């Protein structure tokens, strides 16, 4: 009985992990299999006919994969930088400064969390079209510059920063901006890491918005590029398609592994999820 109690949680978690990881495993498996084996249901990791080289070189040469990746990097970093630049001072003000209307603003932030991007897509699209900004990096980034999720997450984490340190800093001559960036954000690096992962993954994987505002292949971020790839191939070469998917998933995996410790500290600290 004690045995069961001890291992049951692990068993449940293992099943969960299996379900989550299976698609990725399948993707990787398909990317190294030859066309003949692709529809095998076996999960055996070593294919009879090892065609990873062929699939990956196909994926890299058929479409400008490097270009897609670069586009992804530009868009994701652009979004992340502006998000942090705007959300950190906003969160600091909401968490630590006293001014009339603070509660109302905080309520608005939380309310804004409930608005999905789809609801805003049409006005945003019309606006961008009228200002002739479609088919630009800016069009892909602009709707995400102001992140209420970031404001909320940083607010949760900044709130626990000791007030006495902020007061000591004021007496020492720190300006509010220096307090915000050099002390308070400095004390919340785990939540910065957590938010960076959330933001990078979300926008790296985003297909919906780039598909709406970009039709130029040269501007396509990876998921949109994959779509072109599938079109070119009429969806026939699954091996190469999955090799492409593996290539664009890898950076996110690396990014997560690098900040894993901070990420976990960040989400447990801020009480998000």
């Amino acid at each position, binding site marked *: 009985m004690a045995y069961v109690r001890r291992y049951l949680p692990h068993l449940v978690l293992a099943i969960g992990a299996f379900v989550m990881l299976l698609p990725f495993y399948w993707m990787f498996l398909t990317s190294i299999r030859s066309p003949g084996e692709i529809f095998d249901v076996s999960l055996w990791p070593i294919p009879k006919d090892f065609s990873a080289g062929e699939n990956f070189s196909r994926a890299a040469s058929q479409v400008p994969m490097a270009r897609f990746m670069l586009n992804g990097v530009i868009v994701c970093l652009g979004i992340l930088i502006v998000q942090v630049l705007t959300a950190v001072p906003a969160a600091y003000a909401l968490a630590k400064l006293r001014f009339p209307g603070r509660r109302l603003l905080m309520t608005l932030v939380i309310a804004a969390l409930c608005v999905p991007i789809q609801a805003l897509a049409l006005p945003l699209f019309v606006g961008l079209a009228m200002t002739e900004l479609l088919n630009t990096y800016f069009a892909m980034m602009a709707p995400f510059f102001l992140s209420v999720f970031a404001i909320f997450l940083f607010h949760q984490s900044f709130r626990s920063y*000791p007030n006495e*340190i902020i*007061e*000591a800093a004021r*007496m*020492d*001559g720190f300006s509010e901006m220096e307090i915000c960036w050099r002390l308070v954000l*400095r*004390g919340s690096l785990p939540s910065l890491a957590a938010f960076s992962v959330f933001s990078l993954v979300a926008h790296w994987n985003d297909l919906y918005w780039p598909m709406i505002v970009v039709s130029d292949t040269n501007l396509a971020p990876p998921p949109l590029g994959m779509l072109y790839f599938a079109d070119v191939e009429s969806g026939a070469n699954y091996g190469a398609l999955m090799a492409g998917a593996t290539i664009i998933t890898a950076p996110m995996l690396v990014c997560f592994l690098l900040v894993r410790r901070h990420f976990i500290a960040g989400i447990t600290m801020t009480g998000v999820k």
Partner: protein
Amino acid sequence: MTPQSVELRGIGKSFGTENVLKGIDLSVRPGEFLSLVGMSGCGKSTLLRMIAGLEAPDRGTVSIGGSDVTDMDPSERNLAMVFQSYALYPHMNVRQNIATPLRMRRLPLSARLPLIGGLFAPSQTLREIDAAVEQAAETLHIPHLLDRKPAQLSGGQRQRVALARALVRSPAAFLMDEPLSNLDAKLRAHMREELASLHRRLGATFIYVTHDQIEAMTMSDRIALMSEGRIEQLGTPDELYRSPATLTVARFIGTPSINLLPVEIDAQGKVAAFGQDLGLQAAAAHAGPATLGIRSEDLRPAAEGLAVRVLRAETHGADRFVSCQLLADETVRITLRQAAGETLETGADGLTHLAFAPERAHLFGADGARRELSVRERVAA
């Protein structure tokens, strides 16, 4: 920097509907060690934060060294504050922590930027700052800790770093908000002594907030005892102990607490407790119920006087405290202080009598204010 005076005029503050400060006037002399004491919630910390500029008063003015600073930012007032939690910058080591007030003051913004700031800093200024940090560390006996992070320090060491950070900039006055309350009892006693000697050496103005009357009594030149947003009494520790202006002051100052006896003043001004004449004369105009305060050391065993039952005795080294219960009203507790060797003769049922030095008793009216009292011949009951 020569020590500066701090003047408060008519300071008032409300939080919502609660009036936390009700018109405070207070002059702190240059070089004085002044304590603000009182129960928690009496407004003493709020008052200190107003001097610091961290909180704005609704009414009244704050002046430092004769000039009005009411509307100035905290950093422009040239005050240093030591916080209860020490408020050290957690990501900086001790050296950087102590240097920060000077860096913020003397270096331009460009030189304070992370990573590249060093390129813009004038080396002469940096050397001066280094020297000042070393000297402050020397004064507080912490040169060996300069390269540690705050998290690696004990409470007492953090306390010293906070003090070094305060004194490195030679402020017009030091503000301290319960700086010793997070230390253990032994270290607290030691730091009390050190703070007092630091004050003597620097000759600076200290404004010290505490809820601990022993800290206030042992270190201060003067004490301002606060209660419910007012200063009840301002005076030397001795004045507060020997002639408390109100019942609140009498209750607050002194360990063990003052003994309080419910008494009655009759139409002639004679003071009696439970119908027993105490040989004390008050003004006839104050007739009515009142409270008599007697310090534990002013009581002694006697053949007649207040009839009490002894409950227990505690020996504290040189002193012995005997707790008793008044026979006439069992809810009244009386503590008697004796030297450790002395004994108290009691009857078989623990009963005895206590007499007190009438010229050292304090009389307080029903409103808590001190009443004049004189000694006269006792009238037999």
